[in-house]
């Protein structure tokens, strides 16, 4: 597909980001409203999270070993006046196309790589007596080798619903949402199939986590038109429960999340229906949302 994508209301910035306006933005908001409605059916707590994420918290899950190629770091200049003056005097390289940074201060933050990490950090040390459901939409940042409008972006929005509980509670949550996602895609006339997937590990041949995901699939992606993952179901077992010391009945909590790539859903909807018809389809779903959930009561 072409790198340029002519969609009314979409402005593509070549640094891997989209600007939305008009009907396309309205479609985005309606769609997210639908996902929030789905989360409400699980009585999910809603969170609003900041863009910076502490590197120390990512270290607890070995993020930098697994995904060093994806991280975007929040860097600032060291405060020394001479350092700042030198940069202010000559901020650009000789070609004038790249900043010439001075000495950087120690870096302790990254830009959020995945929405659900905020949930585990926010509940670190918790002792849960019942399953907990949380939903949030976060601007996520993943450095890639190339970008495509709506399909592969440096900055993108991820709506997630997260379950923290016993293994059987998390598995039931994921199974329920697997059916919901299938029904929703069908309801919106999006040709999608679930496929087992692995996370994009750095040097996968040498990664125990990648090998583990192959022999113990814990990730399924909802793939549109045989090519674009627009959502995923992820079972983390007790990885985050152990890393963030979250317990359920005295045991490390198990977690799972349902993720919706917002811009990718927009792409799928608009490529099939166009913007205005897509708005009608999503509005139609929102007017009778229970149709999608029928028989799937929490």
């Amino acid at each position, binding site marked *: 597909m072409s790198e340029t994508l002519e969609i009314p209301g979409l402005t593509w910035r070549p640094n891997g980001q989209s600007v939305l306006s008009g009907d396309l933005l309205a479609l985005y908001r309606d769609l997210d409203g639908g996902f929030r409605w789905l989360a409400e059916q699980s009585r999910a707590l809603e969170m609003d999270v900041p863009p910076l994420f502490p590197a120390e918290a990512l270290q607890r899950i070995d993020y930098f070993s697994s995904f060093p190629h994806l991280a975007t770091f929040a860097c600032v200049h060291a405060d020394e006046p001479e350092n700042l003056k030198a940069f202010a005097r000559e901020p650009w390289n000789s070609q004038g196309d790249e900043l010439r940074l001075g000495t950087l201060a120690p870096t302790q933050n990254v830009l959020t790589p995945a929405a659900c990490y905020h949930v585990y950090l926010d509940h670190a040390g918790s002792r849960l007596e019942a399953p907990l459901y949380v939903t949030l939409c976060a601007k996520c940042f993943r450095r890639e080798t190339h970008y495509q409008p709506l399909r592969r972006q440096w900055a993108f929005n991820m709506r997630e619903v997260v379950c923290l509980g016993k*293994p059987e509670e998390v598995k039931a949550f994921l199974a329920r949402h697997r059916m919901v996602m299938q029904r929703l895609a069908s309801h919106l006339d999006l040709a999608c199939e679930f496929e*087992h997937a692995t996370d994009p590990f750095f040097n996968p041949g*040498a990664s*125990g*986590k990648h*090998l*583990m995901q*192959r*022999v*113990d*699939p814990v990730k399924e992606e909802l793939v549109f038109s045989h090519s674009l993952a627009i959502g995923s179901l992820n079972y983390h077992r*007790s990885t985050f429960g152990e890393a963030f010391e979250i317990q359920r009945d005295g045991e490390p909590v198990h977690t799972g999340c349902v993720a919706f790539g917002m811009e990718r859903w927009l792409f799928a909807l608009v490529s099939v229906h166009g913007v205005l018809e897509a708005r009608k389809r999503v509005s139609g779903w929102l007017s009778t949302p229970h149709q999608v959930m029928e028989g799937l009561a929490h």
Partner: protein
Amino acid sequence: MVTESQLKEALRSWLSQKNPAVPVETIGDDTPLIDQRLLTSIQVMDLALFLEDLRGEPLDMTRLRAGAFSSINAIWSTFFAGVSA
């Protein structure tokens, strides 16, 4: 090539070494290794190398599919059964 009983005892011994708090007699042929955290992502590459040593040749990567390491029996049937002389 190892026999089925040799392979299973070798695996039980390897798993016991990796999980000293777990009595070896509790690790059965069908014990779910991943569900019970007897095998984690930290150990799984070591297990692959251990199996290669036992086989005397590299593992067939196409066999590294879902369930391949789920139990001692699964490991036997995936990588050894039907392969041995």
